[in-house]
Structure formats: C-alpha cells, structure tokens
C-alpha cells in the first residue's frame, strides 16, 4: 500500500516536471513574438516651464539634455527644467549614472547640483543631491520608487551653485537615469 502511494507521487511529480518544461517553452515563443512590436515608452520627458532654450530633447523623448547656467556664489534654480509624464501607471525613481570630470581640480568650481522631483501639489517626492568635497563629487544614492499615474506630470527642479571665485567657463556634466518599472 505504501509502495503504491509512493509510486503515485512519483508519477505525479514527473508529470509536473513535464508540464513546467512545456510551460517554459510556450513562454519563450510568446516572448520572441512580443519583441517584434515596437511601442512608445510609457514614461517619457516633456518640456517644462523653464525648458525653453535649455532642453534638447532626444528622439522619442526618452533622453533629455539640459544646458544649465551657473554663477559664482549664486544658487540658480530651474523650477521646471524638464518634466516627466506617463501614459500608464508606473513606478519611477532617479538614480546616478555618471559625473564628469571627477577627481579633478575643475570640480572645486562647483558647490552643488540638486535634482528634485516635484509633484503637481508642489511637494518634493524625490531628490538627488550632488555636492563637492575639494576635487571630488559626492554622488547620491537612488531615490525611492514613487508612483506616477497615467497623465500625471512631475517636474524635475534643478538647483546649481558654483563656488565663490569659480572660473568662468568651468563645466560639469551629470547624467542621471529615471528608472521605470
């Protein structure tokens, strides 16, 4: 009786392994089919109130280049340097990608660059803060994921401050990512 029960379970287990393998094969085929369809990214950049003259939008609005001014010993704020919107409810966060130059004397021309994510209620929902220590840029951790609803618009507010006595023409390039899931 006990052997019979074990035999039953073994057969059942084999059937389950077979079904799992079969399911995986079906999934693979479906995946190959879906890659053939190109669709617009559901989260993308759009111009904000301060974008004119500073924003160079990339193809498909999935890349945004911002040309920002900085003045010595002055905090210059762009309330809406660029905005982010969505066609479906998603979660997004800001994360650091790169900052150049770094570990270089030119870095000391800057005090800080702050990217703030601002919602329609003018509330900050995420922040990436870069600041300098001598010739080094201190890079931030990613923000937490926040929800963006379909049709909602979030502003990217940028604050940039150059050091007192900063050299005219000194520059920095910061690349950040908007991670979507």
């Amino acid at each position, binding site marked *: 009786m006990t052997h019979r029960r074990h035999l039953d379970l073994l057969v059942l287990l084999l059937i389950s392994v077979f079904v799992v393998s079969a399911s995986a094969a079906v999934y693979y085929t479906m995946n190959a089919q879906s890659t053939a369809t190109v669709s617009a990214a559901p989260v993308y950049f759009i111009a904000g109130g301060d974008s004119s003259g500073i924003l160079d939008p990339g193809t498909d609005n*999935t890349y945004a280049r911002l040309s920002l001014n900085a*003045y010595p010993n002055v905090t210059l704020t762009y309330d809406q340097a660029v905005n982010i919107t969505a066609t479906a409810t998603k979660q997004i966060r800001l994360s650091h990608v790169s900052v150049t130059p770094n570990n270089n004397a030119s870095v000391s021309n800057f005090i800080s660059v702050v990217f703030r994510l601002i919602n329609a209620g003018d509330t900050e929902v995420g922040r990436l803060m870069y600041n300098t220590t001598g010739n080094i840029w201190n890079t931030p951790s990613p923000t937490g994921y926040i929800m963006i609803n379909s049709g909602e618009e979030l502003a990217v507010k940028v604050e940039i401050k150059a050091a007192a006595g900063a050299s005219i023409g000194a520059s920095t390039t910061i690349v950040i990512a908007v991670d979507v899931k």
Partner: protein
Amino acid sequence: MKKETLKFRKIRRSIWLVSLVFILFCSVSQGVVGTEKYSILSLGHGIVGSPPVLLENGTAGTSIIYMNSTSARVNTNASIPTYDYVLRIVNHVSDVWKIRLKAYAQNNIERLTNCTINFHNSTNGTSQQISILNGSYTLQTGIWYDLKSLDTVYVSMIRQASDSQVSEVFIYLEILTPNRTTYAQYVLTFEIT
C-alpha cells in the same frame, strides 16, 4: 480506527496534490507576470558664466561686497534712522529681470521697533520689500520689482531699535527670468546695531 487512518491518509494526499498544483502554477506564472523595467536618461551640463546682475556699494552705512559681487553684508551702525542707499543692484546686460527680497533667517530682531528695506529708482518708484515692526515681520517677501535693461535699483533702509545690541537679517535677493520660474538667489546680510 482503521476508517479514521484512511481518512487521514486521504487528507494528506490532498495536501500533497494541492501543494504540487501550487508549485506548478508558480512555475508557469513566473514567466508571464514579469516586471517591465527600463531607464530614460537626463544629462545636465552646467557651465559657470558671468553673473548678469551685480551688487555695488551704497553711499550710506557700510557695505562689503564679496567676491564676484553676488553677495554682500550691510552694516548700519550709526544712530541715523534712514539710510539711502546701502546697496545698488546693477543690471549689466540688455535682458530684463524681476527682482525681490526674501528674508530667510534672523538673529535678535525682537529689539527692532521699525526696520524697513525698500527698492527704488527713478522710473519704478519705491517698493517696500522687508518690514519688521516691534520685533516681528510684517513683510518677509517683497513683491516683484522690474529691473530693466542696463538699469540700476537702489536699496534703502529705515531703522529704529530699542537698544544698542546687534540684530542680523539674512535675505535672498531673488532675480527672476520673466515668464519663467528660473531664478537666482544672492545672499545679503543686514547687520543692524
């Protein structure tokens, strides 16, 4: 007794079956309910430029203009109630701006019975920007005032204190690009004895 043992075995077998079905479901659905993830990139390129608006010394009180002429400290240490003018705000470019004062911190202002900071020039008249009456703010942020092309705005003060201690008011001079929300903040410190 034997009947109960059989029943127990049936229950155990059912649990096994349900567990297997559950494992199967999880295995199959793992591929189907995957999360789509991607990133879009923003590149910020900042370049240090010459400030278009600069601070210059006034003719009343003592003003220290710091490096780059984008921050200043004003000291009114005489027993004169009116100081006109303690600073000049000079537009060195043909662009027009809107400017205002915003007090963001203070020390020992309780002794100030009257402290008023104004903008004025020959074309726009006088605009009260900061007001402290009997130790409390009655105006902490001024209204926007036009700084025209290559124009100058003068900063004047009226002050009265109840004793000879020292008070400090920390103020941003905000310079707004018209029709935008892009603005610069210059730090001004007013020391009042």
